[in-house]
């Protein structure tokens, strides 16, 4: 046992050193021969990608950067709907050009290169943890601006010329209902509230909107917020072509209000303020009721995503107590669905 543990540590160190060497040769090409790498550390390890923080130090100047990398540098198929890292880096470029606050991309690397499939972007200062953004005094000014800034950012994303985009998956509301209903039925864990939500959503489909680039996961947790408000939009891996109302509704889903249920937008703001800013930045003027159907779909999707995470435990794939416990959060989305249905009836 001790021997195995030791081997794992050695393997990890080898991987760190390999990444550091590859980053150093990249930095010397782009920043000059005296560039060196400092403070390389792994921030998170999802199944879909690795995130590393590091610095490029040139003389007395420090560049704080992020490496997003496929696990082990291998180009693996990510989850069925996640786009490739290469596409993600291209979207960051498109969003930057459209004036949406995103981290600038400094380098993109192909599978088989020293770094493996990956890209390097700037590291943006600020906070991503929802509860801190909603609670801490230093974000007080930010909280008053965020609804407007989110509306403008979403209008910017939705206005990006689709001809400039990489080949993204297409998914509208009904596509998502079909997809999540199939997943739910395959679990064979019947939930009457989900049945009612599926039936209601199918019976009340809104008229479609012209398809746009949808971020797909625009909410606190994936936004960097500083004292002045929205500093950067992260986590583009669920981007697709779809309905603009999906993005507006996702940040309204009660699961992303982190307890501040009275503020429909992300727990910090009013939907009308976001919609005004969205329209002022060139987007369609939606009414709050246009968002209701999509908010219900969002709660239903999150409920089934929690079931998917629990399924990882149930199937033996991930025996952690955390995966088991998330199965007892599905009922949060059930009460949200019932509260939304009650309002709609």
């Amino acid at each position, binding site marked *: 046992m001790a021997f195995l543990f030791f081997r794992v540590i050695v393997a990890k160190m080898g991987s760190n050193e390999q990444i550091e060497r590859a980053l150093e040769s990249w930095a010397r090409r782009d920043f000059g021969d005296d560039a060196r790498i400092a403070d390389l550390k792994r921030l998170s390890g999802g199944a879909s990608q690795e995130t590393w923080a590091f610095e490029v130090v040139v003389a007395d100047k420090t560049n704080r950067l992020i490496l997003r990398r496929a696990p082990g540098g291998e180009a693996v198929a990510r989850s069925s709907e996640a786009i490739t890292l290469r596409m993600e880096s291209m979207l960051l470029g498109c969003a930057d050009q459209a004036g949406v606050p995103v981290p600038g991309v400094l380098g993109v690397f192909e599978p088989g290169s020293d770094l493996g499939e990956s890209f390097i972007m700037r590291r943006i200062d600020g906070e991503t943890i929802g509860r801190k953004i909603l609670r801490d005094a230093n974000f007080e000014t930010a909280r008053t601006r965020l609804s407007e800034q989110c509306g403008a950012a979403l209008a910017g994303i939705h206005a990006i010329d689709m001809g400039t985009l990489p080949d993204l998956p297409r998914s509208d509301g009904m596509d998502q209902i079909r997809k999540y209903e199939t997943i739910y039925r395959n679990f064979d864990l019947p939930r009457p509230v989900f049945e009612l939500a599926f039936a209601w959503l199918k019976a009340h489909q809104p008229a479609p909107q012209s398809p746009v680039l949808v971020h797909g996961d625009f909410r606190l947790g994936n936004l960097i917020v500083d004292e002045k408000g929205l500093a950067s939009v992260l986590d583009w891996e669920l981007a697709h072509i779809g309905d603009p109302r999906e993005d507006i509704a996702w940040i309204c889903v009660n699961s992303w209000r982190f307890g501040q249920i009275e503020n429909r937008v992300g727990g910090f703001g009013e939907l009308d303020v976001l919609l005004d800013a969205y329209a002022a930045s060139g987007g369609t003027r939606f009414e709050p009721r246009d968002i209701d159907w999509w908010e219900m779909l969002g709660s239903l999707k999150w409920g089934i995503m929690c079931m998917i995470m629990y399924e990882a435990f149930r199937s033996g794939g991930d025996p952690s107590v955390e995966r088991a416990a998330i199965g007892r959060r599905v009922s*949060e989305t059930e009460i949200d669905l019932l509260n939304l249905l009650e309002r709609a009836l």
Partner: protein
Amino acid sequence: MHDAPSPSELVAAVKSFIDDAAAPKLTGHAAFHARVASNVLATLLRELEQRPAAEASEAERLRDLLGAPDNEDLATMNRDLCTRIREGEFDAATPGLFKHLKTTTISQLAIDQPNYSGLAAALSKLG
């Protein structure tokens, strides 16, 4: 068979061990999982206390809604309810259905996540 200590006493003892003895010695990921484990045991304590009565009243409501026989088990009735909603026989306007689902979900959340914001909102509208 005896039940001293009772299931609740045993779970509470393990929870105390995690909270007071084990968790303070842990860091990083293990400390996070210890917090989750402690929360799971709190859920289990609520479950032991609340589920029997909540399920009995759920079963009673379902028998009324579905016209099911007295000895029909809960899982079968919930499957039947799902099928009827899915096939359109029941919808949100079906008398008693919405209230049943809301009452059941409130009981479930009182066990699963009693501090969830949506639970307080649902209770405040229950009137």
